[in-house]
Each structure stands twice: as C-alpha cells, then as structure tokens.
C-alpha cells in the first residue's frame, strides 16, 4: 500500500484506522478492560466490593487487598468510566448500525421502485420523501422516539426514518438517469423485464454513491443517538450510553468533576470523525472528480 497522495486518500487512511479501532474496542472492550460499567459493585474474589464515586482519572485505590487503577476515573455512582465507555460503544455502534441498515435498505428500495416505475406512484412517494427530508433529523427522531418508546430497536427505528429520504433521493436520481442509458435499452432489446433490469443493470451502478453515503449516515446516526439519549429519550438506564453520560456529566462539570462528561464527549467526537473521514475518503475514491483526472 502506498503513501496517500491526496486529501481524500489521507481521509480514507485516517478514517479507516479510527473506525477500525472504535469497532475493535467496542467488541473486545470488556475483555481488555473489565470493570463495573453498570453498577458501583465490583466483584473481587467472589465478594462484592463497593467502588467509591467521583474518583479522578488515573486513581489507584486499594480494594479488598488489591490495587485497582481507574484510568478514566469513576462517575457519580461509582461506575468505572473506561468500562462504561467501552460498553457504551457497543450500544451506540449497534444503534448506528441498525439505523443505517434500516434507512439505507428502505431508502434504496423505495428509490429503485419510485425511479423505475415513475408515474403517480413516483410523484406521491417523492412528495412524502421531500417533506420528510425538509424536517430536521433530530426533530423527527425525537418525535418517533417519544412514540415508540425505549430500547435498542425502537431507537434505531426512530433514527432510521430521518435518513431514508437521503438514500431515496440519491438512488432515485441515479435510476432516472440510468434508465435512459443505452445499456439499459440494450437490455430491453434483449427481452429483459423491469425486475431484471432494475436489479442487474441499474442497481450495481448505484453502489458507489451508496457506499460513500453509508459512513456518513453512520456518523450522523451516532450524533442523533447521542442527542436522543442526552434528552433522556430512548435508552433505559443503567444501559451505558455516551449521550446519556454526557448529559449527566454536564451537571457535575461545574463542580469540578470534569471527567464524567468530557470522556464520553470525546468518544463521540472521535468516533464520528472516524466515520466521516472514512466516508470522505470513500467518496473520493469511488466518485473521482473531474479535476483529478
């Protein structure tokens, strides 16, 4: 692999590293840094030990005869922040993944149908999508989260709906222009039906655009999720969640316990940045611009 030459290639490299690190940490997190993420009780040699709250980062204390280091400190309920971050990563990434999957599949499907079918169906669906698109994503997510309730799936659904129009518009636009291409006409002349044309001829041509949109949706979903949980919608405590912790940390910040909110906040920023960079990098590779030959 050669050294990155352009801005996009740097983005791709950096983005890939960050996202890979994030995903990896979320998966193996509790093996690497086991701790008490959801309660203040730590089980040491079979006995339940209470962890003191509000310990600053890098505090080492004696518990049941052994020395434990809380690298990022503990929060107001005595929970290890590092473990909470890693566990939270899993939840956040799961929500982002699920909502991206739902929104992209729904958006692509509708975009394909609408673009290829045309007519009244297309006009009605486009109208609905445009209206949805005009609403701020967070508002839509809040409204739906309030309706649907808490939990991983409900949250993902609430967030997903806000992103369906992006995929819809992109795929539909491409279908419209691809429909007129000679290779589609050639397929018709060969006797191909609409289904075959849509799936085998048109759909693969939308992949590059879709691929570069996916990481961006992912990043956006993370922020929206953080926003929802910040507002207290969608998650059930004590499920670890960055947005929720950020909100709680806000209250303790002025008292001087900065680590409770700052670390979740940083986690959000770094993760989102990673995915955005990945998306930007992919975009440049898959959709080369004219002035780069």
């Amino acid at each position, binding site marked *: 692999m050669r050294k990155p030459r352009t801005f996009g290639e740097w983005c791709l490299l950096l983005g890939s590293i960050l996202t890979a690190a994030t995903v990896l940490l979320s998966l193996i997190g509790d093996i690497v840094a086991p701790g008490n993420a959801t309660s203040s009780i730590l089980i040491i040699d079979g006995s339940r030990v209470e962890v003191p709250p509000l310990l600053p980062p890098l505090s080492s204390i004696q518990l049941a005869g052994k020395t434990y280091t809380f690298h990022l400190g503990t929060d107001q309920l005595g929970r290890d922040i590092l473990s909470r971050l890693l566990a939270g990563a899993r939840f956040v990434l799961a929500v982002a993944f699920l909502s991206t999957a739902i929104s992209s599949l729904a958006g692509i499907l509708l975009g394909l149908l609408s673009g290829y079918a045309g007519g009244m169906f297309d006009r009605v669906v486009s109208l609905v999508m445009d209206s949805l698109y005009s609403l701020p994503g967070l508002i839509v997510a809040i409204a739906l989260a309030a309706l649907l309730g808490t939990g991983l799936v409900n949250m993902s659904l609430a967030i997903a709906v806000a992103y369906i129009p992006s995929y819809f518009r992109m795929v539909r636009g491409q279908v419209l222009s691809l429909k007129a291409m000679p290779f589609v006409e050639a397929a018709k*002349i060969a*006797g191909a039906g609409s289904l075959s044309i849509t799936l*085998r001829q048109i759909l693969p041509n939308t992949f590059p655009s879709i691929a570069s949109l996916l990481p961006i949706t992912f990043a956006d979903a993370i922020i929206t999720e953080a926003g929802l949980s910040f507002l207290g919608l969608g998650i059930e405590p004590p499920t670890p969640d960055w947005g929720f912790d950020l909100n709680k940390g806000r209250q303790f910040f002025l008292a001087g316990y900065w680590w409770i909110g700052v670390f979740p906040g940083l986690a959000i920023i770094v993760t989102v940045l990673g995915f955005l960079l990945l998306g930007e990098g992919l975009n440049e590779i898959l959709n080369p611009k004219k002035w780069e030959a």
Partner: protein
Amino acid sequence: MTGLSHATTREILSVSRLKVYFPLKRTIEEVLARKQKVLKAVDDVSFSMEEGSIMALVGESGSGKTTIARTVVGLVNPTSGRVLFRGRDVFSLRGEEFKEYRRKVQMVFQDPTVSLNPRMKIGEQVKYPLDVNKVSTPEQRREKAIKTLEAVGLTPPEDFYNRYPHQLSGGQRQRAAIARALILDPELLVADEPISNIDVSARAQILTLLRELKDQYHLSILYITHDLSSAWAITDKVAVMYLGKIVEVAPTTEIFKEPLHPYTQALMSAAPILGEHTPGKRLVLRGEIPSPINPPPGCRLHPRCPFATETCREREPEILPIGKDHTVACHLYSKS
C-alpha cells in the same frame, strides 16, 4: 433472370408508410390555443431490405435515421404505418411472439462507452441476453458467451470475459457490444453509427468484422450512418434521408456513381476525399438543416436547393422509379 432472382431473395424487413411523431412540450399559449407541437421525426417512409444484405440509411442529424433504427428494434412505437419482419407486422405481435421478434432483431449502439454497463464484467454482459431468455443451462450460456467473444476477435476470450469496459479500448468495447448483440443468434442486426465514436484506425477493423459476421451468422444488417465512405465499403443498398423523408434509394455502386437527388449529390461532393480538391464539381447547398419541428412545405430541401422551382415550394415530390431498383423523390425527375 429477373424472375429467378425475385424467387430466391426474400424480404427480411419492410417498412411501409412509417410515421413516427413525437409530441413536444408546449408553452402556456399553445396549450390554451389547443395547438400541439409535434416533431415529425419520420414522416411517411417506406423501404425494404433483402435477406442477407447490408443496407445503409444515410443522413445527417434530424434525418430520422436513428428513429427508424429504434422503431425497428421496438424501442419506439410508430404513430402510423407498419414495420414488417418477414412479412409480419411487428407492432401487432403480442406476448411470446413479440419476445421472439426481440430475439431475432438486435441493435449495436453508437457509443460503446454508454452502451455497456460500466459495472458489469464484459462476459456477463454478453451472456446477459441468454440469462434473460433462460436459454439452456448457465454453463452452456457461459460457453456460448466465450465463443462469441472469440468470434468478435476478443481473444483470449476467457481473459476478456472477466474484464470491465473501462479496461478495454474503444474498438474492443464495440466488439463486445457486437458480441452481446449476436449472442441470441439474431437474423437482423441494426447498427446505429457503429463506428462514429471509434478511432479511425479501429474503424476498418469493426467494418471488416461486421462483414465477416454477416456471412458467418447469416445476418442482414441495417447500417445507419452519416459517413459515406463506410457505406461505400460494406453496403449493398443505400437509402438517403433528409428531415424525416427518404429522398433516394439505390444499389450502392449506382448511387455513388450517379447520385440523382440534389441532396445526395451535395453529400457525395462534400465527403472529404483524399485526392486533390476539385472546385466546380461541388454541389453546395445554402444554409443548414432546418428544425424538424417546422419543416419547410413542399419539398423539404427547397429553401437550400439550387434547382428549386415553384412546384418544389408547393408540392411534396413523389417517389419515382428511375431504372432498376433506383428511386428518387425529386420534381426534377417527374415526367410532367
């Protein structure tokens, strides 16, 4: 002799009084005035093709030649008139019969960069018509695709099977497009300016290929072009079109030796030749092609024709037979 030749050659394609009109977007005034602007792309065109021949439709932009090509392959519906394939009205066929027609008539497009799917392997695209028609087994389809790739000169075929269009040169892409058109063993190939977007050095390759494939696959080819030299090289019969109408039809050797219609003469004399430029032999037409939305009345060439008379301005010329197999639509040749 004449009776014998009529008995042995069959007509594979016959176009009869074909009209293809396209309605156009209107302004508010036109809607209110209940006027419908219409683009008369093909306006009462008739010609026929013999089996096993290569026939050229020659014309500039707006002549209607591409519309005819698209109508013959079924992409466009006629406004009136008939397209007869082996005597049967194509547009009255339904269901399975129309699908069968589809298999027998295939098209090669002008620009292979857009007539090939950029995200599909060459071999898959060539095989695609077989998939769509569920011909034999998947393995046999692949075999046939490979054989066809070889037949068009893309060797080694297994190698080209796995490549993508952007990895091929322009000439190679067009060969792939031809392979795709041949895979269903069609009887009629409609080639819409197949060499216009190809480099000069590759054009002769494609033309040679078409000639060879015609013999190998027992094809008839309807060859659309604006380039006279390729029509000269490979066709048996030429029909010249102007603004939606056929102005002259004749066997190739004859039409190049003795073009009758002023438009044909202008085309012939304007063709860049490699000899010295000989002034005086040129027939120059004034101006440019008018818009097909509002063609001139009477003979459509009259505003530009140096021989135009009152009759030309008022009445459309009829198609007149001149000698054997040579017809022309021009008042200069009418007996009256």
